[in-house]
C-alpha cells in the first residue's frame, strides 16, 4: 500500500522538477510565476502526502499565495520580459 | 542564571517595542537615541555579568529555555570563549550606538535604523551563546536579515541597494546550505544539539560519562545510536556547513559581496559588519571544528583533516588576495573592506591549523581585529561625514584639522598592520607562531600580506595628512564621535600593552575550554541528571 503513496509522491516531485526547470528558462516572467506556482502546488501536495499538515498550511500560504502575489507586484513594477 | 537567557532577549525586546514607542513619542530623535542607548546599555551590563560568571566557573554555564534539558529543548551553553566575544560585541555595539547619533544627523528614519540595530545585536549575541545547531541557524538569519536591511539604509543610493541585494541573495543561499547540512546531521545523529552531537561522534570515547538518571526515556535518548553512516553524513554536512560559513566570513570564492556591501552601509554599520558580523562565520567554524569534531579518530579524522586543509588553503588565498586588492583602491571604505577579507583569511588559516596554539591565536586576533577594524571604520567615518565623499582624494589634507580623528586613524592603521606596541602585533605574533609550526609557507603569507597592507595604509594616511586639500572646507570634530574613537584607540593601546596578561588570563583559558569537548558534554549531562532526580 505504501507504493501508492510513493507513486503519488513521485509524480508530484517530477512535476515540481519539470516546472521549476520551465520557470527558470522561461523568458516571460509572468509565465515563470505561473510555472513556479504550479511547482509550489505540487510541493504542497507532496508535503500533504508526507503527512505534514502544519507545513501544508504554512507552505500554501507562503509559496502559492505570498510569493506569487509578491512576484506579480514586483513584475508589475519592473519589467515583464527578461532579455537574454 | 537568568542573565544568560536574557542577554539576547533584551535587545530583541527593545526592538519589538521601538516602532510603537516611536509612534507614541512622535519620532523625537533624542528620545529614540536615549531608548537605543538604554537597550544597548542594558545588554552591555548583562553581558558583562555573563562574562564574570563564565570566568568564575569551571564548567560552561548552561541555561535551559522552558526548563527543557539538552536534546529535548534549546539550551544556551556559554563557555569562556563565547562570553569573551559576547562582551566585546556588546561593548562595541554600545559605543557605536553613541557614535551613530551624530553620524546620522542628516538622515530620516532613525527609529527604523535602531530597530534593525537592536535586532542585529540580538542576533550576534544569540549566535555566540547558543548551544544548539538549529538555533544557530535561526540566529545567523536574525543577524543577516538585519545586516541586509542596514546595508540598504541609504535607500536612494543605487550602489548600496545593489550591494544589499547581492549580500541578501548570496547570504540566503549560504544559510539554506547550512539548513540542508542540519537536516543531514539530524538524519544521521538524531539530534541538533552541539553537546549531544559531540557525544554521538565520540560515542566510544564518551562512554566514560555516566548518566545517573533513573528515567528510561532520557537514557534511551542519550544513548541512541546514529542511524546512518556517520562518516559520509559528517563529510557532506561539514562541507555544506563550511560553505555557508565561508560565505558569512567572506573567504575567497565567496568574498565578492563584502567589498560592495561594507562600504555601502553607513560608517557605523560598516564598523559592525567588518568587526563583528563576519566573526559569525569564524565562530561557528570554531564551534564545529574544535568542539563538535575535536579529537576524532579513524576515518572521521580524515574527513576533518581534508576540511582543515581546504580551509587553510582558502584562508591563505584570501589573505593574499585581500592584500593585493587593497593597494589599488581609491575608495577609503572599500580599501578597509578588502583589509577585512585579508584578516578573515588569517583567521581561517589559524582555525584550520587545528592546534591549541592556533585557536588561541585565532581568538586573540578575532578580538583585536574587531576592535581595531571598528576603530578604523569609525575614524574614517568622521572624515567621510565631514566631507560627504568616500574618495581618498577628497579627504586630502583633512588630517591636520581633525587631530583626534587622525590620531585614532593612525593608531588603527598602525595597529592593523602590526606595529609593536599595539594590539594586533601580538596576535599576529601568535598567528605567526601557530602557522610556522604547521608550515613555513603559511607564515610567509602572513608576513607578505602584512607588508603589502602596510604599503596600502600608508598611502591613504599620507594623503589624508600631507595631501593638498582640493578645496577649503570648514570642518569641526563632532564631540560624541571623537570621544568614541578616542576610547577605542586607547583600548587598542591598552590591549597591546597588556597583551601578555590578557593572553594568559583570558585567551588561554577560553581556548583550553573550547577544545575540551568532555567538559562541554558533561555540563549538559550533569544538568540533565540534576533536573531529573
Amino acid at each position, binding site marked *: 500500500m505504501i507504493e501508492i503513496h510513493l507513486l503519488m509522491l513521485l509524480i508530484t516531485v517530477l512535476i515540481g522538477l519539470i516546472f521549476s526547470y520551465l520557470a527558470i528558462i522561461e523568458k516571460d516572467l509572468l509565465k515563470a510565476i505561473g510555472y513556479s506556482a504550479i511547482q509550489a502546488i505540487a510541493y504542497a501536495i507532496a508535503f*500533504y502526502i508526507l503527512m505534514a499538515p502544519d507545513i501544508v498550511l504554512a507552505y500554501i500560504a507562503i509559496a502559492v499565495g505570498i510569493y506569487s502575489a509578491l512576484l506579480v507586484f514586483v513584475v508589475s513594477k519592473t519589467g515583464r520580459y527578461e532579455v537574454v | 542564571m537568568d542573565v544568560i537567557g536574557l542577554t539576547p532577549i533584551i535587545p530583541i525586546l527593545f526592538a519589538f517595542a521601538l516602532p510603537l514607542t516611536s509612534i507614541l513619542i512622535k519620532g523625537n530623535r533624542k528620545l529614540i537615541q536615549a531608548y537605543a542607548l538604554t537597550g544597548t546599555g542594558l545588554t552591555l551590563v548583562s553581558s558583562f555579568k555573563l562574562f564574570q560568571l563564565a570566568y568564575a566557573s569551571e564548567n560552561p554555564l548552561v541555561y535551559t529555555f522552558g526548563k527543557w534539558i539538552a536534546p529535548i529543548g534549546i539550551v544556551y551553553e556559554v563557555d569562556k570563549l563565547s562570553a569573551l566575544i559576547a562582551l566585546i560585541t556588546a561593548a562595541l555595539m554600545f559605543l557605536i550606538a553613541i557614535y551613530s547619533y551624530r553620524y546620522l544627523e542628516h538622515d530620516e528614519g532613525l527609529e527604523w535604523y535602531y530597530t534593525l540595530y537592536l535586532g542585529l545585536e540580538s542576533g550576534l549575541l544569540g549566535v555566540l551563546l547558543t548551544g544548539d545547531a538549529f538555533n544557530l541557524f535561526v540566529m545567523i538569519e536574525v543577524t543577516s536579515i538585519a545586516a541586509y536591511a542596514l546595508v540598504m539604509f541609504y535607500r536612494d543610493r543605487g550602489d548600496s541597494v545593489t550591494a544589499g541585494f547581492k549580500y541578501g541573495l548570496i547570504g540566503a543561499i549560504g544559510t539554506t546550505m547550512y539548513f540542508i547540512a542540519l537536516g543531514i546531521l539530524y538524519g544521521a545523529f538524531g539530534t541538533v544539539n552541539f553537546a549531544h552531537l559531540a557525544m554521538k561522534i565520540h560515542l566510544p570515547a564518551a562512554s566514560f560519562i555516566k548518566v545517573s538518571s533513573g528515567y528510561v526515556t532520557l537514557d534511551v535518548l542519550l544513548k541512541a545510536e546514529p542511524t546512518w553512516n556517520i562518516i559520509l553524513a559528517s563529510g557532506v554536512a561539514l562541507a555544506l556547513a563550511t560553505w555557508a560559513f565561508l560565505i558569512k566570513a567572506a573567504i575567497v570564492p565567496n568574498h565578492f559581496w563584502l567589498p560592495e556591501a561594507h562600504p555601502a552601509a553607513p560608517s557605523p554599520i560598516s564598523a559592525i559588519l567588518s568587526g563583528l558580523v563576519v566573526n559569525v562565520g569564524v565562530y561557528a567554524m570554531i564551534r564545529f571544528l574544535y568542539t563538535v569534531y575535536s579529537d576524532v579518530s579513524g576515518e572521521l579524522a580524515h574527513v576533518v583533516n581534508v576540511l582543515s586543509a581546504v580551509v587553510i588553503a582558502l584562508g591563505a588565498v584570501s589573505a593574499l588576495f585581500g592584500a593585493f586588492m587593497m593597494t589599488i583602491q581609491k575608495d577609503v571604505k572599500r580599501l578597509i573592506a578588502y583589509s577585512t577579507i585579508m584578516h578573515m583569511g588569517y583567521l581561517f588559516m589559524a582555525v584550520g591549523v587545528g592546534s591549541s596554539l592556533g585557536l588561541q591565536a585565532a581568538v586573540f586576533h578575532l578580538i583585536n581585529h574587531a576592535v581595531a577594524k571598528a576603530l578604523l571604520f569609525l575614524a574614517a567615518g568622521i572624515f567621510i561625514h565631514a566631507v560627504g565623499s568616500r574618495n581618498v582624494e577628497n579627504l586630502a589634507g583633512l588630517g591636520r584639522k581633525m587631530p583626534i580623528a587622525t590620531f585614532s586613524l593612525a593608531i588603527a592603521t598602525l595597529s592593523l598592520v602590526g606595529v609593536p606596541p599595539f594590539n594586533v602585533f601580538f596576535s599576529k605574533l601568535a598567528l605567526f607562531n601557530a602557522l610556522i609550526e604547521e608550515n613555513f609557507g603559511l607564515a610567509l603569507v602572513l608576513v607578505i600580506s602584512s607588508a603589502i597592507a602596510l604599503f596600502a595604509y600608508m598611502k591613504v594616511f599620507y594623503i589624508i595628512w600631507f595631501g593638498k586639500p582640493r578645496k577649503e572646507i570648514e570642518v569641526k570634530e563632532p564631540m560624541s564621535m571623537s570621544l568614541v574613537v578616542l576610547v577605542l584607540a586607547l583600548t587598542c593601546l591598552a590591549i597591546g600593552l597588556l597583551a601578555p596578561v590578557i593572553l594568559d588570563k583570558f585567551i588561554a583559558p577560553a581556548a583550553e575550554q573550547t577544545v575540551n569537548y568532555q567538559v562541554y558534554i558533561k555540563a549538559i549531562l550533569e544538568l540533565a541528571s540534576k533536573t531529573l532526580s
Partner: protein
Amino acid sequence: MSLENVFFLLMKFVIPLYLLAFVIYAIRAFKGPTIVDIILAVDCLSFDIAAFMAILAVYFKSAFLISGAITLALWAYLLDIYVAKHLVSKEVGA
C-alpha cells in the same frame, strides 16, 4: 462488503483519474500559449487538488489533513485576482 472496503475499492478508480487529470492540466499549463491559459490551468489544478486533498483525508482516515484544502482554495483565488488585476491595470495596488 463493509463500507470501508467499498471506499477503498472506489479509491482505486478515483485516484488514477485525478492523477491523470493533474498531468493533463500540467500539460496545458506547459503549452500555454498565453499567460491567462497558464493561470487558468493553475486555477483548475489547485481547486482540483483541494478536492483531492479532501478525498485523501478520508483515505488516510485523518481529519487533520483537510484544513490544507481550505487554504489552497483561498490562495488560488488570490492568484487569479492578482494576475487579472495586473493585466487590467499596470499597477496592482491602485
